[in-house]
């Protein structure tokens, strides 16, 4: 029990917080505070999202007519390359870990900061530098038309700005390594006293698994891109067939990173969903250890499947068979997660607010994205579907339907914590509906036309596909509007939203025990550790109008504990 004075001091909205305890642009540019770095990262990746999203809309409207609209073929190639490169390297990979993860991870373990704050800031500046290099490929007038995969030998021969772009991706790789290294060390050495691995929120397990991938896979991309640069400048003959090199070797190297990178994109998103589903069902997550270990299993299996991107590149049939089989294996831990989320929902007291709507959208969209992956992992169907719109639709279901949806859900979940203000929930739900509907309208038709043979990366196409492309273009416009609206709702809330308390959603993980917005040091008290999914540990406090740990509540008003739920 604690006095009302102490309660107010800990949980009431403070006058000084991490946002306003120092002022001026320098206090942001040189900050070592993980929360500010997280916010800056969030602003950065959002700009990248809108830039690359604008490219996507240009592409979609160009494809509205079968003979192609307003882009020359060369411009079309550059447009889809930059859309892909910026979305992948500058947006999706850093989005959830570097923006949300940076903000939440140290608080979830009751720490003051990540283990290496300067490295964290360095990561952000490398992100800026790398993104600028990618952007320089556009602004220099050279453009970039290799596709985001930089396949040789074309990437050696094209006159566009390959060196700029690959150097940008190289730098972004280091930015990503720094984030991952920081998170691994922080979770290992800086957990709150008594916080065992199995008292970590599942978001941290997923970030941990992601960090393992970032550390093990990204250096290989780094050296591959350096060799590509050396090949382009000096013709070293490793990838260039003209000089006895092997272009398929480049594909192996590239996908050794880029398949695990798919899990850098999706695992943190899955972690967000585990939090949201549990909190908004107010029910202990079903199968905690299964979800935790499935993240690790996905991370490790992800290193053994890269060859499924090269089924038609002339690998030996035996190798192809093995890659196909392991690819199917990845479906198991992924399905474990989905089943556990569904089981958590069962008989939960479900609150259909904005973050939960996004979380449910995620389960549906990721489910389709995952299942269509099996069509592509199967050798015979892949021969037919490879390089068609089916592939495009599949990975957009995973990356956009998965990661982007989870990012938005996570933002709506943690936004009150980040800025101390609540958003308009109805508008938020409408934005979620628009994203969900627009997304399906965009990419469902692409499955259909892909299975009918519409190849990807073409600037014009057979008239029979026009109707599908037109649906898709309409859908993309709705999707774009939905994303814009969701960020609008959030932005408005950050400045003009209603003030909210420390823990408006009755969540039990540690970050909700700080004030909203948090103090510069995260906590002004020693946070009280509970199981992160024991929601009964939080009780409502009338004076503060928020949930607080029952140990600190006024003993006169505390309801008795419900029986702990056992599974």
């Amino acid at each position, binding site marked *: *029990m*604690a006095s009302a004075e*102490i309660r107010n*001091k*800990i949980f009431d909205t403070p006058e000084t917080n991490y946002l306003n305890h120092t002022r001026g642009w320098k206090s942001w540019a040189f900050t070592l505070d993980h929360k500010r770095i997280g916010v800056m990262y969030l602003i950065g990746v959002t700009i990248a999202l809108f830039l690359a999203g604008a490219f996507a809309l240009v592409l979609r409207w160009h494809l509205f007519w079968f003979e192609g609209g307003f882009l020359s073929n060369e411009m079309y190639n550059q447009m889809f390359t930059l859309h892909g490169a910026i979305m992948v390297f500058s947006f999706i990979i850093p989005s959830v870990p570097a923006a949300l993860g940076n903000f939440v991870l140290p608080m979830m373990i009751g*720490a*003051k*900061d*990540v*283990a*290496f*704050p300067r490295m964290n800031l360095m990561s952000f500046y490398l992100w800026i530098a790398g993104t600028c290099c990618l952007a320089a490929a556009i602004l220099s007038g050279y453009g970039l038309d290799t596709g985001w995969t930089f396949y040789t030998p074309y990437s050696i021969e094209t006159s566009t700005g390959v060196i700029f772009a690959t150097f940008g991706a190289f730098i972004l790789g280091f930015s990503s*390594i720094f984030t991952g*290294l*920081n998170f*691994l*060390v*922080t979770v*290992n*050495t*800086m957990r709150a006293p*008594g916080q065992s691995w199995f008292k970590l929120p599942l978001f941290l397990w997923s970030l941990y698994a992601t960090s393992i991938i970032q*550390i*093990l*896979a*990204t*250096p*290989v991309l*780094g*050296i*591959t891109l*350096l*060799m590509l640069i*050396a090949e382009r400048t*000096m*013709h*070293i*003959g*490793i990838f260039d067939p003209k*000089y*006895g*090199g*092997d272009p398929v*070797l480049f594909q192996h*190297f590239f996908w050794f990173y880029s398949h695990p990178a798919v899990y850098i994109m999706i695992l943190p998103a899955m972690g967000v969903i585990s939090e949201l589903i549990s909190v908004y069902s107010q029910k202990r997550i079903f199968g905690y250890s299964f979800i935790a270990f499935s993240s690790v299993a996905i991370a490790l299996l992800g290193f053994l499947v890269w060859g499924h991107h090269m089924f038609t590149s002339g690998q030996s049939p035996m190798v192809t068979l093995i890659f196909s089989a392991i690819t199917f294996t990845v479906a198991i831990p992924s399905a474990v997660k989905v089943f556990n989320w569904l089981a958590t929902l069962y008989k939960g007291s479900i609150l259909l607010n904005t973050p939960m709507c996004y979380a449910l959208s995620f389960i549906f969209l990721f489910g389709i994205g995952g299942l269509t992956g099996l069509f592509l992992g199967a050798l015979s169907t892949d021969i037919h579907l490879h390089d068609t719109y089916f592939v495009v639709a599949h990975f957009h279901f995973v990356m956009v339907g998965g990661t982007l949806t989870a990012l938005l859900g996570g933002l709506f979940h943690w936004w009150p914590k980040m800025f101390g203000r609540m958003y308009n929930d109805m508008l938020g739900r409408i934005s979620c509906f628009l994203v969900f509907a627009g997304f399906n309208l965009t990419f469902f038709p692409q499955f259909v036309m892909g299975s009918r043979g519409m190849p990807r990366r073409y600037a014009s196409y057979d008239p029979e596909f026009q109707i599908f492309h037109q649906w898709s273009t309409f859908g993309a416009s709705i999707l774009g509007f939905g994303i814009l609206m969701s960020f609008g709702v959030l932005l408005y809330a950050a400045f003009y939203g209603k003030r909210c308390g420390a823990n408006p959603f009755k969540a039990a993980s540690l970050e909700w025990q700080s004030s909203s917005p948090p103090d510069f*040091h995260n*906590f*002004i*008290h*020693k946070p*009280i*550790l*509970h199981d992160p999914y024991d929601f009964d*540990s939080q009780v409502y406090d009338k004076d503060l109008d928020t949930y607080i740990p029952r*140990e*600190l509540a006024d003993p006169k008003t505390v309801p008795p504990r419900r029986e702990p739920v056992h599974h």
Partner: protein
Amino acid sequence: MAVVDTDNILEEEHHHHEPFIAHHFDDAEQQFDSGKLGIWLFLVTEILFFSGLFVAYTLYRIHHPEIFEQAHHFLDKRLGALNTIVLLFSSLTMALGVHAAQNGDNKKCGLYVLITMVCAAMFLGVKAIEYSHKWDLGIFVRSEFSYHPHTAEPFHVSPYLIKLSVIPVLLLVGFIAASFFARASSKVALSKFMGGLAITVGGYFVGVLIGMTFMALTAENEHAQLESPSQAPLVLRALTLDDDKHDDGHADADGDAHADGDHSHADGEDHAHGDSHAKSPDLGRDVGIFFSIYYCMTGLHAIHIIAGIVALAWIYWRCLVVHWRPDYFGPVDYVGLYWHLVDLIWIYLFPLLYLID
């Protein structure tokens, strides 16, 4: 749940921290453990960074075993072995330096770190000799590869060596000047630091001199090989023939630029014509792939050596201003681990590139 002491739940307002413990760590031990784990993970990324090149090496060796068996004859085993010894010795001094820091003996630590830096620079000096000698002979990466065998007189200074040494010369002059300037303004530590850097750069020139001496000793050997091609490795014969063919058109026009070399292997030509030339017309050119990989691997390794020197200089500076204490020496340990890894990579590169058969 443990019983919560709700009366003392607030953090104390003022933290009395040790000077070298960052505010977000609870204590020195947590800080040290974090740093240690961090550097180990960083080393993992370094190994994976090199792994791409090791995989490329393995694959091309499987595809072109004949090239890899032959091409390493161009590499001077003695210089490679010398550099291996230099690096192994530097690992020893690094370990001694860490030990000294652990005992809080900053003076000793500084000395050992300085020796490590000098060894690192020596390594680069020997490498500069190796590189410049190969470039003299036209041994470049695949697309630029054009072998012109000739023997230079002992202690011949290659124009490439001069280019490589421009920056070290500037650094040497700069550091010496800075050292004197600092002494004049009675900044003792800074003066010592700049002096140490100057000695480090001096190590580079020592390496160059030792390398030249070795080259002078091996020049005899190389000459003999060229005179009796039947003794020379297959690839050398193939390349020499290739070179002749190539030169046929314009050797005369060049005047006597190649006279020396042409003459030295002319008598072996008929003998070599039968087997090597017919057998592998591409052998000569494809040797370039071996050297592409050689330059990528050793070049990347040299960049790591340079980065290591910078990190060691930072440690050296903190020795001079007496930062290390028995309860705070983490950075020495971390840089030491990095340095051991750089050595370790060379320990792999040396047999793979120089010694394979």
